[in-house]
């Protein structure tokens, strides 16, 4: 997918924080484990974890494995230590959430795959430019899919936005609207994320 690199880069940035922290503090952690009389096996296993791949060489799967180890594994020793504003455990959990982006499509049923394939074609005229962070097509597809599941009709219907309680913004009325300013390149959106 064209925007996968955004998720990958974010995972990589988080991974770099975990990697750098352990490069700087791994030895101190081993000393702490020895002080607490951790078993030689545990210390050896932790030492092996410190040989995690360098960020510039790590694959997505390797980064995910390290994140898992921070949350529930040998690197959990330092779960509560901070790298910047966040604890290593929080950083690892964020990585795992981002990794879900790559796993999620595998969870779609055959029915969903067929629907999404057709819907992307039906709604291809709707906005979708991930580089500019502007769209409309995905919200329309997701909302129509919900409407499809709610209705008794087995035939796939591809509804107009108005039927789904979505109205189009009008450029003449909305010249200062964020969407149009971005599509007209008056501004550049560099990131949009949602948080609780």
């Amino acid at each position, binding site marked *: 997918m064209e925007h996968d690199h955004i998720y990958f880069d974010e995972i990589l940035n988080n991974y770099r924080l975990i990697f750098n922290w352990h490069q700087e503090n791994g030895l101190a952690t081993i000393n702490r484990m020895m002080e607490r009389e951790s078993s030689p096996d545990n210390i050896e296993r932790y030492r092996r974890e410190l040989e995690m791949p360098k960020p510039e060489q790590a694959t997505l799967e390797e980064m995910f494995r390290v994140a898992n180890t921070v949350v529930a594994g040998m690197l959990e020793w330092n779960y509560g230590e901070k790298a910047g504003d966040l604890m290593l455990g929080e950083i690892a959990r964020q990585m795992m959430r981002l990794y879900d982006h790559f796993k999620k499509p595998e969870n779609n049923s055959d029915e969903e795959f067929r629907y999404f394939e057709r819907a992307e074609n039906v709604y291809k005229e709707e906005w979708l430019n991930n580089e500019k962070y502007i769209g409309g097509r995905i919200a329309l597809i997701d909302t129509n899919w919900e409407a499809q599941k709610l209705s008794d009709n087995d035939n796939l219907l591809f509804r107009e936005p108005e039927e789904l309680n979505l109205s*189009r*913004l009008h450029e003449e009325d909305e010249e200062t609207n964020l969407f149009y300013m971005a599509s007209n390149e008056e*501004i550049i959106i560099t990131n949009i994320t949602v948080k*609780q």
Partner: protein
Amino acid sequence: MSWTVEISIKNTSSSKLPCRIKKGQVFENKKVGTGFQNVAAVKDYIFDIPPNTTHKVHIEVLCINQRLAAPQGFLNVTSFAVSKNFSSQDELWNIMNTINQ
């Protein structure tokens, strides 16, 4: 439960730019089939983007797709807004669960 959308906006011009996000403005996932809800702004936001800077704004939003999972990750701002007024999550879901014939 409300959510917050954080938007980073770069203004490369030498003058401040007024910007508006209307109530109901929809923000969407960046791909189909994620299983995560799309979201809509809970009120109007009007702000200026200072010249030659990257400005961050935080928008309170509610979810629009009741049957999908809690929102997460990266979003796009869309060309759509919710067409009816709403004042709570339940009210918004009720609107979105109604099909206009």
